[in-house]
């Protein structure tokens, strides 16, 4: 046995800290939480309120815009219909709403941090190890503080998802900007381009393919979080899987699992299409 006198627990300081944060900044968290909740509710009501065929049309249109391939569009259409046929439509829309909002929050957080990392070496040295920790830490661990700060429900589920899913977006934003051809940046600078214009007019547009790849990974990771997130109150497909596990209802769990897979494939392919078309342009330039 390791001598007890040498043992040091960081459990209670961390608990104290979280508690103190909850007490002192409760109002702030409430406000953030409320804002996110409003957005989720809005997105959810739109997605669930729209007739099913409208949603499918939108998906097929996105598939067309991204790849210009009729076969792919047809596959997307069939897969979305399959979701409905399996009786998963409503659950899928709930999951999709959570995903969209989680992605939105990830972009709002990840893009600025990624840009900061690309521009500032100190910021990068600090951020990269933190990202490593975020990605390797079992996701259940940060469910707990999130739960304490925000309680049960959709918002904490989204935030836990964001923590898990945002690292690739930050990494690839940083990488994408640093990979922009140095002479292009030099040329822009030589003509007197101001920093903001350099960022928005040159660096971000040219980093877009890489950033899109990061966003794609973020969406995929968010989707892989849905089951875990359902443990703290996310509804939708993840909850269905969880219920299936808890009641040993394999069929039910599998059904919902198929729904998640379909959503993953459809979103992945559409986003890759968007990333690729830009990538080709940039390559050739």
């Amino acid at each position: 046995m390791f001598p007890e006198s040498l043992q040091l627990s960081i459990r209670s300081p961390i608990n104290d800290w979280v508690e103190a944060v909850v007490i002192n900044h409760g109002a702030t968290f409430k406000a953030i939480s409320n804002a996110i909740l409003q957005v989720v509710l809005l997105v959810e009501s739109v997605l669930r309120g729209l007739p099913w065929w409208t949603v499918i049309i939108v998906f097929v249109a996105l598939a067309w815009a991204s790849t210009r391939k009729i076969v792919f569009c047809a596959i997307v259409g069939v897969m979305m219909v399959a979701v409905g046929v399996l009786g998963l439509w409503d659950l899928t829309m709930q999951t999709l709403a959570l995903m969209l909002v989680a992605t939105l929050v990830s972009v709002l957080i990840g893009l600025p941090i990624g840009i900061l990392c690309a521009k500032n070496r100190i910021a990068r040295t600090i951020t990269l190890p933190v990202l490593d920790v975020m990605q390797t830490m079992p996701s259940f661990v940060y469910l707990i503080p999130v739960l304490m700060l925000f309680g049960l429900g959709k918002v904490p589920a989204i935030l836990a998802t964001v923590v898990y899913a945002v690292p690739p977006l930050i990494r690839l934003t940083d990488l994408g900007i640093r990979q922009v051809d140095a002479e292009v940046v030099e040329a822009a600078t030589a003509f007197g381009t101001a920093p903001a214009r350099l960022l928005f007019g040159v660096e971000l547009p040219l980093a877009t393919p890489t950033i899109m790849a990061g966003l794609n990974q973020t969406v995929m990771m968010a989707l892989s979080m849905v089951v875990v997130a359902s443990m703290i109150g996310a509804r939708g497909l993840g909850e269905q899987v969880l219920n299936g596990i808890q009641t040993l209802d394999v069929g039910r769990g599998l059904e919902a699992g198929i729904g998640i897979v379909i959503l993953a494939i459809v979103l992945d392919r559409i986003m890759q299409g968007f990333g690729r078309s830009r990538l080709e342009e940039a390559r050739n330039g």
Partner: protein
Amino acid sequence: MAEIEIRNVYKIFGQNTAQTIELAKQGLDKATILAKTGSNMGLADVSLKVASGRIFVIMGLSGSGKSTLVRHLNRLIEPSSGEILFDGQNILTLNPRDLRAFRMRRVSMVFQSFGLMPHYTVLQNAGYGLTVRGEPHAQVRDIAMKWIETVGLKGYENKFPFELSGGMKQRVGLARALAADTDVILMDEAFSALDPLIRAEMQDQLIELQRTLAKTIVFITHDLDEALRIGSEIAILRDGRLVQVDTPGAILRNPANDYVARFVQRHANHALAHD
């Protein structure tokens, strides 16, 4: 009108610049300094004057510091020590805002590997300097079109850089610098990607421009014939140090050392072969 003066500029790439400059001042050469300190001596004790309204040519082997030197003139690279004066004003003291204004209005540049914006059309690229400066859209268009025509790219204005050959890209880079209409134009091997016919044409055009518009042009080239043809003065760099600055005639007659002589020798042989 703009006169440029560079005074005792040192540029060290790497750590311990102060210490490395001391070694450079003792006259150690680039290879020794690199072995001793691990730092790369880009430029050492470079002083020169570029007369207003002239074409000033910089020559030297690859890696001799030509690009580094020319990038000091618009502060794309900051010297490790020394002064850079534009019409007597030290541009190293400009704050970021004034530096941007200086780059917008006083000096433009043509890049060795073009530096075109891949997501902009030829027209947008050519007008880039004017757009950044905030000129009205219609005017940017007109001026950019005029220079696109001048460099012989009419009909390509709506193409993207990836649709052009290397020589065409270089001409877009040229149009971009000319459209900005600055007193000073820095040209880093600006004609290297052009085929001989267009190259000669561009050289004539440059001489013409310098004559009619009194531009001050700092021109980097590998090609002695080109240097002799367009240069009013030629500076020769070797391993970061200036070895000779003179008129073309003086360089041909009195090369300062073997290095310069070798440059000139080739030309002499060339001329003989043509006779």
